[in-house]
């Protein structure tokens, strides 16, 4: 069931939040031992909140489409009175004294919090394998990664453990697991949604946003996460595909794709073209430098945040994350500044690529779900490191800050989902969502 399905029924009293919440908690109880999507389940508080939502709705105090909806939070987002582990034993005993801003806004919208989801430790990875609370598993094939770092959140949506969820995205951590698990992931523009009360990885690249079962559900959550004076009522209408101007950033972002990903994404772009979209090639000239820019920024920022605990309790980090954080401490200031300047160059080039267009269209991810423990994956041009492949198509829009969304567009052999990514103009997330609604519909019609 989606939020868009449940909300009108909840509003009319045809469906009770308590029942919906019980169903999600049952899913968690049944599947979490296998998939390890949740670090903390807040069953009692959720049921209490659900009963209160039912009482308020029955009393005529309906707050809107998230009222009574079971929602999970990536466990680096503060929920008052509950521990925020960030997937690390370093924070195993930390209990949040207040809600994060995004939690508070969802609470005001009537969301029912069912728990905190597993993640790659401190969001410093793309597979959710390195977590102080155990690795998470893909819901279709448990020998594979669900992606990350918001891996638990993606599993929660894909399996009905919650109807909504909050993730964070520093290099792709909303869109990567969304693509891998066959759901929608929306990274709003940088700064659109407050990251206050969210454990940082890199404050200049971190984005807070929703993962969801559909573009409409992503919108409903995104809207509720905004400051009250920027929220709107209703759902945007789908853009018309006829005349929609889409740019394909050919070259680097299409160079190292898995064969199934390339086939499905190119076929989907052709579907959009046949539905009336005008598709042209565009250039991001410094795309080949993006990985180096990203690495130095994230390393510099993470080294600063973790410096004290790397000294005081290094044994509490998972070995791989500790190693990467230790490596991060060797980045020189002059190279960090080169990366800061490179980030501005990429932002400018994405702006230029979008000039005269409605959105860019590209794969969300170069590969389907990788096997847990895989160091490399075969792609066009030969094997490539999993981490580099995971970030390749998403990190441009963390560097540039443009809004971007991943939507399901097909499957690889073995039934593993593949995601299509759309990126829009700064400050125009609603227009991006309208384009994504149109693409989602065209993909469904073609399927």
């Amino acid at each position, binding site marked *: 069931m989606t939020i868009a399905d449940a909300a009108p029924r909840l509003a009319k009293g045809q469906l009770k939040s308590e029942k919906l919440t019980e169903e999600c908690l049952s899913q968690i109880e049944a599947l979490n031992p296998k998939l390890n999507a949740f670090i903390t389940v807040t069953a009692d508080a959720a049921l209490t909140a659900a009963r209160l939502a039912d009482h308020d709705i029955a009393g005529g105090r309906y707050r809107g489409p998230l009222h009574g909806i079971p929602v999970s939070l990536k466990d680096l987002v503060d929920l008052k009175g509950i521990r925020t582990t960030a997937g690390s034993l370093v924070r195993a005993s930390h209990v949040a004294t207040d809600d994060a801003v995004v939690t508070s806004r969802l609470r005001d919208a009537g969301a029912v919090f069912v728990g905190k989801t597993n993640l790659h430790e401190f969001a410093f990875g793309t597979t959710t394998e390195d977590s102080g609370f155990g690795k998470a598993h893909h819901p279709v094939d448990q020998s594979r990664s669900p992606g990350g770092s918001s891996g638990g959140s993606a599993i929660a949506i894909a399996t009905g453990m919650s109807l909504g969820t909050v993730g964070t995205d520093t290099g792709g951590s909303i869109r990567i697991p969304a693509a891998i698990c066959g759901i929608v992931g929306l990274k709003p523009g940088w700064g659109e949604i407050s990251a206050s009360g969210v454990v940082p990885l890199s404050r200049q690249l971190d984005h807070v946003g929703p993962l969801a079962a559909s573009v409409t559900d992503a919108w409903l959550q995104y809207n509720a996460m905004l400051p009250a004076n920027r929220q709107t009522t209703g759902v945007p209408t789908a853009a018309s595909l006829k005349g929609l101007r889409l740019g394909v950033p050919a070259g680097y972002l299409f160079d190292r794709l898995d064969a199934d990903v390339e086939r499905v994404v190119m076929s989907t772009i052709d579907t959009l073209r046949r539905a009336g979209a005008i598709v042209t090639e*565009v*250039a991001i*000239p*410094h795309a080949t*430098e993006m*990985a*180096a*820019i990203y*690495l*130095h920024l994230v*390393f510099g920022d993470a080294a600063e945040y973790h410096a004290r605990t790397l000294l005081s309790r290094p044994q509490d980090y998972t070995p791989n994350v500790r*190693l*990467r954080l*230790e*490596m991060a401490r*060797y*980045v*020189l200031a002059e*190279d960090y500044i*080169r*990366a800061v*300047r*490179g980030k*501005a*160059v990429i*932002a*400018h*080039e994405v702006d*230029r690529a979008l000039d005269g267009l409605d959105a860019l269209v590209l794969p969300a991810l170069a590969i389907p779900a990788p096997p847990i423990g895989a160091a490399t994956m075969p792609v066009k041009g030969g094997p490539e490191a999993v981490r580099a492949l995971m970030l390749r198509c998403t990190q441009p829009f963390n560097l540039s800050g443009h809004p971007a969304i991943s939507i399901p567009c097909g499957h690889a052999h073995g039934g593993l989902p593949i995601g299509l990514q759309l990126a829009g103009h700064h400050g125009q997330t609603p227009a991006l969502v309208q384009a994504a609604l149109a693409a989602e519909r065209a993909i469904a019609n073609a399927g």
Partner: protein
Amino acid sequence: MTVGEWLEWAKADALKRGLPDLVAPLEGLAQATERLRAADWNDSADHATPVDPGHAESRTLPGAK
């Protein structure tokens, strides 16, 4: 400090700190740093006045279309 000098220093420091597993990843980081330093947006004090990418509407950035 050149990237080569930095790498030698970093590897020696990692070994001194009892972190031998860092040596191979540091070589990967060194490659990324080489790439960053070779990028054409980097300035040189004896070359042209810098372009600010945030205010580059009327000027051409390196490699821009």
